[in-house]
């Protein structure tokens, strides 16, 4: 019995946990490398259609040459069930997108012809609405537009 002695009061860890932060750092670096910063949460439902001829817009994001707008039906029923245009954190009208775009371009200190506007549109939005948005952009010479779509084979 005397052979079994209780160990001293100090709690020396049985498992060496100093490697745990290393694992967490690895996960962290993975996320830092594989992700891009999310801009705004969409207030409208956007289900993107698929296309095989899309271009990755990340380089434009990194060079700050692109703005995003959302077009779709609001997620919250209190905003109605008509298709709305979301400019940054608020809803707007297609007629006002020109003013909004000019402000965004001024903030960037760039030329309006060089800044792309990406229309992240839900797949069931009517073309008429999109055409109005495009014409409003054309009026202020924001001629470069990107149709948001997911890379993949479109369903026919």
């Amino acid at each position: 019995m005397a052979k079994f002695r209780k160990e001293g009061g100090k709690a020396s860890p049985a498992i060496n946990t100093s490697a745990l932060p290393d694992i967490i750092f690895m996960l962290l670096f993975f996320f830092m490398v594989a992700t891009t910063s999310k801009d705004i949460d969409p207030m409208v439902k956007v289900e993107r259609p698929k296309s095989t001829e899309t271009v990755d817009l990340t380089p434009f994001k990194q060079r700050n040459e692109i703005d995003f707008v959302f077009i779709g039906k609001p997620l919250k029923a209190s905003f109605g069930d008509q298709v709305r245009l979301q400019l940054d954190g608020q809803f707007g009208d297609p007629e006002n997108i020109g003013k909004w775009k000019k402000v965004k371009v001024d903030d960037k200190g760039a030329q309006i012809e060089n800044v792309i506007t990406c229309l992240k549109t839900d797949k069931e939005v009517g073309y008429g609405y999109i055409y109005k948005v495009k014409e409003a952009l054309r009026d202020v010479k924001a001629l470069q537009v990107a149709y948001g779509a997911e890379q993949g084979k479109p369903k026919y």
Partner: protein
Amino acid sequence: MAKRSIPEINAGSMADIAFLLLIFFLVTTTMDKDTGMLRQMSVKIDVPEDMQIDVRKRNLMKIRANAQNQIQVRSELTDIADIKEKVDYFYKANMFTDADGDFPEYLTVNKYTCDTSIVAIEKFLDANDDPAFVEFKEAERREWEKRLNVINTLKGPYREMHRSAAIQIELQTKTHYEILISIMNEVKSAINDIRDEKGKEIFGIPYRTMVQKRDLDGKGNLFKDEISLLEILVPERIVELKPADLQ
């Protein structure tokens, strides 16, 4: 006295710090790659009657879609899957010889036509300084200079689709965005396939590969001239028309 061993630094909090950073990244980023189809809109100008280019039916291919997802190409009901083949034929019909009178005309561009056009534009710009026209004509002049570059690279004249040739996409107000994307996808796919072919023929590299490499390059300078050349030889002429029933 028994020697008191130095307590180890408690490494438990390091894990907490790492967790905090991780949660920060989890919350503020997304793995969703933003992708899209780039479209270049044209400047709005009121071109006077005498300056409008005469567009003949042979140079146009109208693709129409209604709200019931029915598609017509040149007034013939078509399946989406067949659009690509039709666009391919539209581009290739007269590319090498004048074979089909119902499809776009191809004209030979040589150094003489480029030089005379540039001279004509310069004369026009000397006589007029209405800013709307100046911009329009300057853009035209840049196009002719690009054509001169193509002639220099290819070391000879080349055949180019008529300047007014275009694929017009006409939808209705209620046509779904999805249909626009599907149609645009087919048209762009056909054009990019032809560009891939020409790229392999002239430079040994397909067009799409060049674009990928250029986009990965930070400055966007890789393959710039080659891509420019292919985009002139096989121009993407897609025009979206105003829906007829739009108020």
